[in-house]
């Protein structure tokens, strides 16, 4: 038996006559990191909400592990998929460790206390997001990035085979962004299905197995990062001239906003190479 995945079949979400998501098909496959990118208002978070079960699609169906999600009970669903929302508001002074422990909820039977393994799972989760030193701190007093990592620990502690992450790297510094994305890779290596909504196209390019580009509620491209992160497509989708260059070390695509004034007369967007002049100037500026 293969590990469970998730599939959305032609899902739409219409609110007040406006389609926020229109006939989208997604496969979140075990062992794979799927990155969803797109401009603000493209419907990424709505899609994430539909996959998480927060929003009932107005058309189409979501299947978890081959079963329709609608028919599943919250507890059973929570053992199959975990979800990191864009924002978490917690006003009560729980410690980071207590918040991470909450992720164990679906694994603790109603009439039992948490087992030693539950405490261990919460601790491991905090360690893997480099938040263990925050364990006894009170959540509302943590910084935005620290709160984000603690919330991610809670999601990891839930130990679900399907992991949905809505902008897991926002509010994080460059080091912790890399940490979180490496965690996504590790989850996929463990055979889990990972979907991450990302704003940083370079993180998507560097860490995802597949990238899905959304615009106006629809899927406009799905494929390997090198295919989906195409300069012309991205320039059109984001309404901003961009260029795509290979990472000097990994060769993975890097997306840069094109500087239109750097070389007058030559259209800046769609170019595949960094102009030498730009890089020299940048080097001297440093």
């Amino acid at each position, binding site marked *: 038996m293969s590990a469970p995945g998730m599939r959305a079949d032609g899902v739409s979400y219409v609110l007040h006559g406006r389609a926020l998501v229109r006939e989208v098909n997604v496969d979140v496959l075990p062992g794979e990191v799927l990155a969803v990118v797109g401009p603000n208002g493209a419907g990424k978070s709505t899609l994430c909400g539909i996959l998480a079960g927060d929003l009932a699609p107005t058309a189409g169906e979501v299947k978890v592990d081959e079963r329709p999600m609608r028919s599943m009970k919250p507890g059973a669903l929570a053992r199959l998929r975990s979800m990191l929302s864009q924002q978490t508001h917690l006003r009560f002074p729980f410690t980071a460790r207590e918040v991470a422990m909450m992720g164990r909820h679906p694994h*603790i039977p109603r009439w039992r206390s948490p087992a030693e393994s539950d405490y261990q799972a919460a601790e491991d989760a905090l360690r893997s997001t480099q938040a263990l030193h925050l364990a006894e701190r009170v959540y509302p007093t943590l910084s935005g990035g620290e709160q984000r990592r603690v919330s991610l620990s809670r999601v990891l502690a839930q130990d679900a085979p399907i992991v949905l992450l809505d902008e897991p790297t926002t509010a994080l510094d460059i080091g912790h962004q890399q940490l979180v994305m490496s965690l996504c890779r590790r989850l996929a290596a463990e055979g889990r299905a990972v979907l991450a909504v990302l704003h940083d196209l370079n993180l998507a390019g560097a860490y995802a197995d597949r990238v899905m580009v959304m615009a106006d509620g629809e899927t406009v491209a799905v494929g390997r990062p090198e295919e989906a992160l195409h300069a012309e497509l991205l320039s059109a989708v984001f309404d901003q001239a961009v260029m795509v260059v290979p990472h000097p070390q990994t060769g993975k695509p890097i997306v840069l906003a094109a500087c239109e004034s750097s070389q007058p007369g030559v259209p800046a967007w769609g170019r595949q190479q960094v102009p030498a002049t730009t890089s020299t100037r940048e080097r001297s500026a440093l």
Partner: protein
Amino acid sequence: MGAKAVTRLRALHQAAGRRVSSPRLAASTLLGIMTALFVAALFANVGMGAVEIPPAQAVAILLSHAGIDAGPDFTPRSDAILWNIRLPRVALGILVGGSLALAGTALQGVFRNPLAEPGVIGVSSGAAAGAVGAIILGFSVFNFHGVAVAAFLSGLLATGVVYMVARAYGQTSVTTLILAGIAVNATAGAFTGLFIFIADDDQLRSITFWTLGHVGGATWPVVTSILPFFIVGFLLLPLWARALNLLTLGDREARHMGVSTERVRVSVIVLSALLTGAAVSVAGIIGFVGLVVPHVLRLVAGPDHRFLLPASILGGATALLLADLIARTVVVPAELPLGVVTAMVGGPFFLWLVHRTRLTWGGME
């Protein structure tokens, strides 16, 4: 320049690595302190008054009612005062205080709002309107059943309206619930005002007496007739502790972790309304216990409902016993209304608490 900055950075990292722990009391320590306070309040309430009954005598009287002869002698008068007057009063105080604090804790959790108290779901103001209406219709305050039953039913009705209004598409929103509560409270307040306006002088005295709160008229039949409601609430509400912990993260998050949020909300609201309705129907309006006790406990013990819910029963009971002790001893031979005492002590105390919380956490949020 660069190397120096890196060295400085390393030192900063080390300093930040030192653990900062939250200033909480261990649950067992706190429970010990609370139990001691509760027992002290219990014996003070039983023993103090026009006739002093020392703890040893009180125990002896209790044992004699259980058919055991033991300890110091006591007069039949002490026996009568303890068994017929003070004990039912103490029992009612424990039940009322415990249920107001428990309902307050549970509602603050389910509304994710530290301002919530039993009043937010309309039950108190609804009960008040019902009780005042019953008094106008000629029921006496001391006729327990008429006024109390009217108060209880109208309290539940008000909560039902709040819940129905806030419910849409099989879901309720916390904000809508609070807004609906405000509207229902205002409407019920208008009815109370109208009844007061048409009341005669005797009825006005009764209404004033009822709305200021009291546990003085307690008798064993009163206590036993409402006991089932309290037992149901005390036993069932704490079962939702873990779900309430998860709900503090938000509805969506709680559902992601497997909580049936709507079922939790309905259960907590219904049980809290039952508890508060029962408390208000027999004791009138007693403010601040349901607001202050949960706050104090959360401040010293942290926000874990698995501890908070049972502890708030004990804390609320103790708070009410102490308030009732003040109510009946400061202006002997008269008595202060209980609701006046709880508000007089609770109001300023809550102000201090809010200020302190603002200083330490930058606010309640």
